[in-house]
């Protein structure tokens, strides 16, 4: 990879492309800081005059149709204090505005002695203390603060005679209810998945991790989208250096909008040039809790159900949450099958091409004769066959995802017909090639994360090319290059292939196989945790021991006294 980068650099320098490109971009200066209000670099303090403030607000928002300003008076008409309630329609919970703001402010203040001695000077404090029935309120002093309040879905209460405004949390936009995860499905295990609302997601995490050491730190990313980004980690378990590095990288982001956690992932990962993901992602709260307990750091992004986790190792791409909810021996078998499937997905088509083209002597003679007979009437070289079938397969797969569901059915029928017998009958491809490509395709579907599925698809092409030109030697070369590339990657300081390379045998208890929980009293060391111990020793379950147990006769078979 580094060689590639270097050669790219030299090429670009040779043609002067880099400098041209840089000039073209640098013509547009980067603003030093966020100009939240156009043309206003410094905070604009609020006026004491209510009308001025309201007019400014409306002007800044361009009299936007969803801005609601409700003016009213607190107290009897002549001495009453004029107030205004501002919020963005659709972002707020109307019911709480009615019962917790409008009702106490307009009606309750009439009934009690609230208005006695009320004047422009003490109105704000009195309202703050006794008339706002909302839990989370704060004070805004500048126009920018008020705007942020409104745009986040809160309600702003402006009081005449005061240069401050009350910001009340009345957020209440429509969110998708917590539902079953779409991608990381399990047979046994929790059915809850993250949603698009960051607060719901952090609550899903908190509910499973009722530990005062759980830290949630909020950042804002996106000059215009003001997307909430929250870092989650366990104080005392996560490596503080990694946490600090995550903070640093998130703060470094300066972009106009972040719509999905992939935006954050692309801007903070260690390997921007690699096809391998060095930032993990999950839509399952239980998976996130497991990662945090191992000392990783989670990154929530508002507006997406996918939460990022770092450091992320290659081996995590081949693990499913299900592995931890089923019998350890069975899940070990499944993990080994997945590993085989990974190699099948990447290497099988090219292996087939290489052997049939360059090393037919590896096949037993009868089989070889069958293949040769099948190739009669097929005019393409094996490599072209593989490419053609691979293309059709990938096309069908992509079409199946993009098409609306009712039409998608048709695709599978067409696919079954084309990939099935028709292509063979027409003499386009040989029958074994259909099997080979289909096997590689199925192997791709075995990958527990989508990203590693993409990786296998991407790697298949160069492998096929070298397998078709240099035979098995070419495939081995590609394998070596992939290995060197993987071995040179790091995710937040942790070698990407660890604990396999550098090999650490005690750490492989939860890698290619999964040993039972009682056999792993320590956290995986490679993550760089702070606190190694996760359970006592000797947690192997067993029936009560009769020998040496004085209460033996009182103890039942199930261990209950």
């Amino acid at each position, binding site marked *: 990879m580094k060689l590639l980068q270097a050669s790219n650099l030299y090429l670009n320098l040779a043609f002067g492309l880099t400098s041209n490109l840089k000039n073209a971009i640098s013509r547009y200066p980067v603003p030093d800081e966020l100009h939240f209000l156009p043309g206003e670099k410094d905070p604009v303090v609020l006026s004491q005059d209510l009308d001025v403030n309201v007019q400014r607000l409306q002007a800044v928002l361009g009299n936007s149709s969803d801005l609601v300003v409700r003016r009213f008076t607190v107290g009897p008409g002549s001495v009453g204090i004029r107030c205004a309630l501002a919020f963005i329609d659709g972002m707020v919970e109307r019911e709480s505005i009615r019962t917790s703001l409008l009702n106490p402010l307009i009606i309750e203040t009439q009934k009690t002695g609230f208005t006695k001695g009320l004047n422009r000077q003490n109105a704000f404090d009195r309202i703050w203390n006794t008339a706002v029935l909302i839990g989370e309120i704060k004070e805004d002093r500048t126009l920018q603060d008020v705007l942020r309040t409104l745009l986040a879905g809160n309600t702003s209460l402006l009081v005449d005679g005061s240069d401050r405004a009350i910001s009340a949390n009345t957020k209440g936009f429509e969110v998708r209810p917590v539902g079953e995860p779409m991608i990381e499905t399990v047979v046994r295990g929790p059915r809850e998945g993250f949603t698009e609302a960051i607060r719901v997601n952090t609550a899903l995490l908190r509910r499973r991790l009722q530990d005062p050491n759980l830290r949630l730190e909020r950042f804002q990313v996106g000059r215009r989208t003001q997307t909430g980004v929250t870092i989650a980690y366990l104080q005392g378990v996560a490596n503080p250096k990694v946490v600090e590095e995550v903070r640093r990288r998130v703060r470094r982001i300066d972009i106009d909008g972040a719509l999905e956690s992939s935006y954050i992932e692309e801007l903070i990962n260690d390997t921007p040039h690699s096809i391998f993901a060095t930032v993990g992602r999950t839509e399952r709260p239980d998976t996130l809790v497991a990662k945090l307990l191992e000392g990783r750091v989670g990154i929530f992004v508002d507006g997406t159900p996918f939460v990022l986790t770092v450091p992320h190792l290659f081996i995590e791409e081949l693990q499913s949450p299900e592995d931890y909810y089923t019998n350890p021996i069975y899940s070990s078998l499944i993990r080994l099958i997945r590993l085989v499937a990974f190699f099948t997905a990447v290497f099988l088509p090219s292996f087939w091409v290489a052997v049939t083209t360059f090393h037919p002597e590896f096949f037993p003679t009868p089989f070889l004769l069958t293949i040769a007979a099948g190739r009669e009437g097929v005019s393409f070289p094996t490599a072209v066959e593989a490419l053609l079938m691979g293309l059709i397969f990938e096309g069908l797969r992509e079409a199946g995802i993009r098409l609306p569901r009712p039409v998608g059915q048709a695709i599978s029928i067409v696919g079954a017909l084309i990939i099935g017998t028709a292509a063979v009958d027409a003499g386009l491809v040989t029958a074994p090639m259909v099997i080979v490509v289909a096997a590689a395709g199925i192997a791709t579907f075995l990958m527990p994360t989508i990203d590693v599925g993409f990786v296998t698809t991407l790697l298949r092409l160069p492998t096929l090319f070298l397998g078709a030109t240099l035979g098995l030697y070419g495939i081995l070369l590609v394998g070596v290059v992939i290995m060197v590339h993987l071995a040179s990657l790091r995710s937040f300081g*942790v070698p990407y292939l660890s604990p396999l390379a550098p090999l650490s045998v005690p750490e492989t208890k939860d890698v290619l196989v999964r040993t039972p929980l009682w056999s792993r009293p320590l956290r995986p060391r490679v993550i760089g945790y702070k606190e190694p111990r996760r359970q006592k020793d000797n947690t192997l379950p067993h029936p009560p021991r009769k020998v040496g147990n004085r209460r033996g006769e009182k103890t039942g078979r199930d261990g209950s006294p």
Partner: protein
Amino acid sequence: MNNTSSVRLSGRQAMWLVVTTILATTLIFLPAWVAAEAKQDAWLSVLLSMVVGVVTAWLVSTLGRRFPDLTIVQYGERILGRVLGKVVGLVYAAFFLHINTVIVREFGELLLTGFMPETPLVVFIGTIIVVAAYGAWAGPEVLARVNDFILPVILFLLGVSLFLLVNQANLAALLPLAEEPAGIVRGALASAVFFSEVIILAMLIPSLNLRSEAARAGVLGVLVAGFSLMAVTVFATMVFGGERVANLTFPYLALTRIVSVRGVVERVEFLALGIWVLGGFVKISVFYYAAALASSQWLGLREYRSTVVPIGLAIGFLSVIQFENIDQISSFLTTAALFAYLPVTLGLPALLLILATLRGLKGGSGTAPGPRGADKEVSP
């Protein structure tokens, strides 16, 4: 990060690198060359010539303990002074480069004759150099990690292929034992060059996180590789007999070709191909790295990576023009190499160690970073 063992080479990784470096390509050729001298006692020759490797490992690691942060090119200059030291440095840079040209040529020759006779030799040499350049560029730390995968695979494939030959092995072929002691010694000399390849430790020691483990890594590495080579030699002798092994060009390849277990498992030469390409990559990359590091230190460059491209071109060019065929390589390695390589791997380190001890020279604190550029950290 807090995990220092993941930043540099551990002693275990260095040992594994030594094993792969000695074993990888050697195992395909060696039995023939040794058997040419020692006949059925070839395995005793291999056993004997391990001594050369152990001595070299001891010399190099003792020097490495005196100068923990320096490579042999650098402490050669400290010990012998500027002018003579530069000569020694050049000798090592040339040695690592030259031995690599031989390995690369062997590598290509086997692929050519054994697997793909219609492909030009240059294609094999060109492709492996490009891939090895990537490996050398990535540095010893990455190579060690890759080797953590490759060495177990090599040993596994080797074990499987030898196991499949059990039904054809004839123990009597090893008799009479120690028929001609002189032949055994001559055979040991023929294989000495390969064990002295442990000299790469002299370039790797500054990258170790515990320099004191270098001796263990070197000696154990030689022993593991040696016993694996001995196993191959024993099987080759048992299957083919001492006389016939000597006439084979690639005895191990021939072994895998005649595998036949009840007609079900036959012709497992792809096992040999796997060992050859995976191990060959590690071996060539390690020597490539050593050559690049030695030459850049000799030239006084700060980054070894600046010499990776020219070294690669030199290896490719020399490996093609140097020999005409595989027999020339064999005869070079078993005769001329003794006088060309052994003085560099045994004589010079011994001389340097004696002089350093006499003059009481020591250097390096043991905490300074290894070769520049190799241990580049990406993050915290």
